[in-house]
């Protein structure tokens, strides 16, 4: 067994494999499948101040090698998350390394959620700021597609918490490296990418969009080449650790992201195909390292040869 521990600045993980936010619920849903402590970290579905319904249905559509989703961040809100049986209290008991993904409809909401979590931060290892949501105040433009807003969100969250901060970048931009630089400047300790790529699908028989919300986010193996490219660009642009994701189905895919510059990875859509996918990714990385005679997974981070 190769050494799989990775250092993400202030955060050290026993292995580089996390679950991607929104694809693993709050961990609770998969408790009968395996021991959550086997994961590098559990990243929970996005948490906001208030409970929210999310979008109308249909919310998902399958596409070639991927899927579109517009769940619309349905969730329990931060209070229930902190105290409801199926949420943080369960995760505390499980012993899992927990990263809480947060979102808001305004800069203030981001700050408030972070502050609320900071107040009960025991067993929370980091916060992941999802900046792909539309900013209601600014007329719907996503925080993650406006350099200024992205910087502000992170800076405001930084003010209220000492937890390691991961900022999750949107791929729907011309130069993602600029966003990585902006959020690093604002105090983000890491970046994670990619979130989903905006897409659309139409049922030609009914002539209606397959997603009630009209557009949805594309994920799955279809997007992997775009994700690997962005991870490479970002890892060249900033010094903070990069968490790579987008279409990882197996250990080989994860290795590809790490060679491109990711210090850790997250598995998302693959979980829907196979709940054990994150564990198989861990095993697959280890198998690769042994095949290549590497003692530690750290040896392959950014190891692509040009």
């Amino acid at each position, binding site marked *: 067994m190769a050494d799989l521990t990775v250092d993400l600045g202030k955060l050290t993980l026993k292995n580089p494999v996390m679950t991607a936010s*929104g*694809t*693993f*619920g709050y961990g609770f*849903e*998969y408790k009968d*499948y395996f021991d959550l402590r086997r994961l590098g970290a559990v990243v929970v*579905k996005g948490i906001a101040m208030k409970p929210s*319904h*999310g979008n*109308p*249905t*249909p*919310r*998902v*559509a*399958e596409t*070639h*090698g*991927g*899927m579109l*989703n517009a*769940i619309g961040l*349905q969730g329990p809100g931060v209070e229930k998350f902190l105290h409801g049986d199926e949420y943080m209290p369960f995760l505390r008991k499980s012993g899992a390394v927990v990263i809480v993904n947060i979102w808001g409809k305004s800069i203030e909401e981001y700050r408030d959620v972070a502050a609320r979590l900071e107040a009960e931060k025991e067993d929370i290892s980091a916060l992941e700021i999802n900046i792909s949501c539309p900013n209601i105040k600014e007329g719907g433009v996503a925080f993650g597609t406006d350099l200024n807003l992205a910087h502000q969100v992170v800076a405001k969250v930084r003010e209220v918490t000492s937890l390691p901060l991961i900022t999750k970048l949107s791929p729907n931009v011309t130069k993602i490296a600029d966003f990585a630089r902006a959020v690093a400047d604002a105090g983000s300790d890491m970046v994670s990418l990619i979130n989903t790529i905006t897409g659309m699908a139409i049922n030609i028989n009914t002539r209606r969009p397959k997603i009630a919300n009209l557009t949805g986010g594309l994920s*799955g*193996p279809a997007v992997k080449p775009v994700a690997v490219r962005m991870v490479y660009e970002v890892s060249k642009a900033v010094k903070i650790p990069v968490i790579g994701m987008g279409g990882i*189905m197996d250990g080989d895919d994860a290795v590809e992201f790490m060679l491109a510059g990711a210090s850790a990875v997250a598995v998302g*859509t*693959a*979980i*829907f*195909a*196979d*709940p*054990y996918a994150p564990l198989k990714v861990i095993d697959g990385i280890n198998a690769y390292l042994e095949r290549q005679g590497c003692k530690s997974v750290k040896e392959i981070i950014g190891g692509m040869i040009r």
Partner: protein
Amino acid sequence: MITGEIVSNTILKDSYYKVEFFVPEICAETQPGQFVHVKIANLRDRILRRPFSISDINENGILTVIYKVVGEGTEVLAGLPAGTVCDLMGPLGKPFSLPRENELPVIVAGGYGSAATYLLAKRSPVKGILLLGARSEADLILTDKFAAAGFDVRLATQDGSHGHKGLVTELIPPLLKEKSGQKIRFYGCGPTPMLMALSKMLQKNGFGDGEVSLDHLMCCGVGACFACVVKIKTDNEDGWRYARTCKEGPVFTADEVYTDGE
């Protein structure tokens, strides 16, 4: 997730197929109304699983699914020969509650709904009634098995080829008259419009404890992704919430079903 071999996979009737998996672990836990989430081998360009109601199980570890070919996944499934090994998750979802000894179970079904309620009929302590609706004869499946299970099978077809000409819900008012003395427990499974009409009727007539199984697009199957939600009446500010059909359902009481709008 359990690996199971296909024991047989054959045409049942028209576009309906019957597939049997050898999955003793799942059979051991299955209750009526639950489903399996199947990764269809060879479906490579589409990566999600497909949910199917468990139609029957037996003591030899054989689990039966009756499915209709409607798209790429079911088409590929229909082509898988016996011996193919598939990944199944299950049993998943909240089951039907069995009728009590003093209740007459009335199952209202359409499409694959009869398949999805067959195990319920089989396990019911009381022989009840199946009201089965379809567009035409081609969609009337499992009537013989229900009859063999002691159920009184009544049909409705939109083209009038079999039984009542019209909608299956139209069979309910005469039935209520006929069985007016008895305590009836309703169960429903079928196309969404039928279930909406049924739930409305049950709510109005004091059968709100009737149970309907809602069929929505699914993704994770275990409550993690919020893809499969349906509006359910709830005691909150808005009067409703989105409930996950895979975990909080697919079985809901008729009372819960939100029949206004969506």
